[in-house]
């Protein structure tokens, strides 16, 4: 067991650190709450991701020939940690970088692998994920959006929902039913869909926060060329699962980092507020809660380190690889609740009020955190999966 870095890795850390120092955009004002891309920031975040790309600080583990850095998860981890320490802005093309690119690299033909991943990293092309539908969420395999072959094209009809970033996306990872006559998992195909094709309509949906971050997407006889199939016709379920696996992995890294940023922000908040005339951090009950958050946040780091070790050794991921999302959700939602508790009556005030603490960011991130236990697979579904696949309990 050794948590120390090799001299090369130490050098890498130092280089990243000093790069971040000089290149952190001046207009970026980190807020304490956990940062996710927000509507008013898209242009800025696009530029920031481009800067990272030009410096080679994104897609570290992707092969070099597809625009990546050809490095190991260790460098990725170091980078994420440094970004957290520097309170760097988030990645805008998070679904492309976290899921789309890795899936294309895993399943794409040479042409697809040359064409898409580099533009995902550079943020020239933003990606969204078209999985969920009005009648298929947790039970994703029941999806009904249809694609019917017509010559060299597939004609797509149907609807997606809760599609994050669809309103700014250039491409969609689309799951559609290509064979309704076989069992539900076997008739799905994964398409790389150009959002500018005729017949694609995006309608923003307002969320609990008041902002529109996700959308409905309608397909009306959208003609997708057959070269846009990824990983073979009717193989979409397997291809999509890769995406979910990558989602867990990258989210794992990224999420711990976001949590750490949020926690530091929370501690600052707590040090600056009083309850009954006493600084919040001096209040025994709050100290207990803050310490527990600290412990849980650190814990995610070490659970992650255990999972990464298995990866680096070329071993199968163990149970610790599957518990991360649940542990993160629990900790982050609790953190946001505690932010409200710290602010007390001030938590009611939002953006626009002079009295709002830190411009009301915590109210926003508190509301946004409600989605954590739903997006990317609900907590209930995570528990089913853990119980069945890790603990081997019988299926329903």
């Amino acid at each position: 067991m050794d948590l120390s870095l090799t001299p090369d890795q130490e050098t890498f850390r130092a280089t990243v650190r000093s790069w971040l120092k000089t290149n952190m955009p001046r207009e970026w004002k980190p807020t304490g709450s956990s940062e996710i891309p927000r509507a008013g920031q898209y242009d800025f975040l696009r530029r920031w991701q481009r800067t990272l790309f030009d410096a080679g600080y994104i897609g570290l583990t992707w092969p070099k020939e597809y625009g990546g850095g050809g490095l190991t998860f260790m460098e990725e981890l170091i980078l994420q940690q440094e970004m957290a320490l520097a309170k760097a802005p988030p990645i805008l093309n998070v679904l492309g970088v976290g899921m789309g690119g890795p899936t294309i690299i895993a399943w794409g033909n040479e042409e697809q692998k040359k064409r898409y991943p580099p533009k995902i990293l550079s943020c020239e092309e933003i990606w969204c994920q078209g999985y969920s539908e009005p009648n298929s969420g947790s039970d994703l395999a029941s999806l009904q959006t249809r694609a019917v072959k017509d010559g060299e094209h597939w004609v797509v009809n149907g609807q997606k929902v809760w599609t994050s970033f669809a309103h700014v996306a250039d491409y969609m990872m689309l799951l559609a039913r290509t064979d309704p006559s076989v069992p539900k998992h076997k008739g799905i195909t994964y398409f790389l869909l150009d959002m500018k094709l005729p017949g694609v309509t995006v309608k923003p949906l307002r969320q609990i926060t008041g902002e529109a971050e996700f959308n409905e997407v309608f397909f009306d006889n959208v003609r997708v060329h057959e070269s846009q199939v990824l990983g073979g016709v009717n193989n979409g379920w397997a291809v999509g699962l890769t995406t979910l696996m990558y989602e867990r992995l990258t989210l794992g890294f990224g999420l711990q980092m976001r949590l750490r940023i949020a926690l530091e922000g929370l501690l600052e908040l707590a040090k600056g507020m009083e309850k009954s005339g006493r600084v919040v951090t001096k209040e025994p009950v709050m100290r207990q809660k803050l310490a527990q958050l600290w412990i849980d946040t650190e814990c995610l780091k070490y659970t992650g380190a255990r999972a990464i070790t298995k990866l680096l050794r070329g071993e199968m991921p163990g149970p610790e690889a599957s518990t991360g999302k649940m542990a993160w959700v629990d900790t982050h939602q609790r953190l946001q609740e505690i932010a409200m508790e710290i602010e007390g009556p001030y938590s009611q005030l939002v953006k626009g009020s002079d009295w709002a603490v830190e411009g009301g960011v915590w109210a926003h991130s508190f509301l946004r955190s409600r989605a954590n236990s739903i997006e990317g697979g609900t907590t209930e579904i995570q528990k089913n999966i853990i119980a069945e696949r890790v603990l081997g309990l019988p299926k329903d």
Partner: protein
Amino acid sequence: MDFGFSQEQELLRSTARKFLENECTSGFVRARMEEPAGVTDEFWAKLAEQGWLGLIYPEEYDGTGLGFVDLTVLMEEMGRVVMPGPFFSTVLLGGLAIREAGSPTQRKEWLTRIAAGQAKATLAWTEPSARWDAAGVTCTARDDKGRFVLNGTKLFVPDAHLADAIVVVARTGEGKAEDGVSLILVPKATRGVQVKLLPTMDQTRKLCEVTFQDAAVPADALMGVKGKAWPTLARVVERATVALCAEMCGGAQRVLDMTTDYAKIRIAFGKPIGTYQGVKHKAADMLVDVENAKSLTYYAAWAVDENSPEAPLAASMAKAYVTDAYRKVAGAGIQLHGGIGFTWEHDLHLYFKRAKSSEFTFGDATYHRERVAQLINL
């Protein structure tokens, strides 16, 4: 970075598992619960033979010179079978205090004998006030013409009834709470030392009351510098705490294993109960608790081995988390077993009770969260 166990450590794990499954069966544990000793000479000799009693002592004292990450593996396995007996008190309390603070002579005398299975030791720290801070140390050791004369009562002292040597935390001077605390090595045979075995909920852990009434020991019984023992004690306790956490992890893992095994075979409403989400989701929660507990414990073991400045924080983070986790997991294990989990016959209660006794050894979760708060400068 490599945050996993080495091949040698995995080998130690499988050796320990096999040994303990054979030698420390449920029947053996229950027999030990019923008698004061909590261990048999034969079993103790076998632990010595395995080299485990000297695992963390330097080779010059006939130890193996291994570290806390190695020990973690062993402790997990011991926790897995709720191993009774004075291993913890001897190796990690009395023995470790001697390793950290003892003079070369004291080390030579005691560590070699501990490693060989010929002597047992313990640490007499807490008192009826049940405080973990220096102010809780009121037992006195008066300097009296080249001797120390001890007076006071120690409570919750593990295995004092078996120990040949008791390392006593005593006040040798006035002054600030942390100032004036000394460690004194008291042979149990010393006149004026009285040990009373206490009936305990967790019968696999024997606790004692130890009273000192003008118990006199020679000046060379002092360990380390007079009045300056508090940091050493903290170091010993920090290490023992990490080892305890590892033992708790092993117990929690075993409860989870027992529970998932049972959930696969127990039929209710025509199906194995593990089919029902009420059971599944609880089991998944248990897994999260167990895995997180391990992550923090392994980190703490590493930090201790490395003498990292974060070691005190790591130890407190681990103890806070693992305490809650083991208690929850052991409780959930009983719940998911239904009526059978409430019986004396089923082993679950051994784990449930061990979780409880461990919870209050070296501070509970609340105590350690407050320490974390202090250490992160809140």
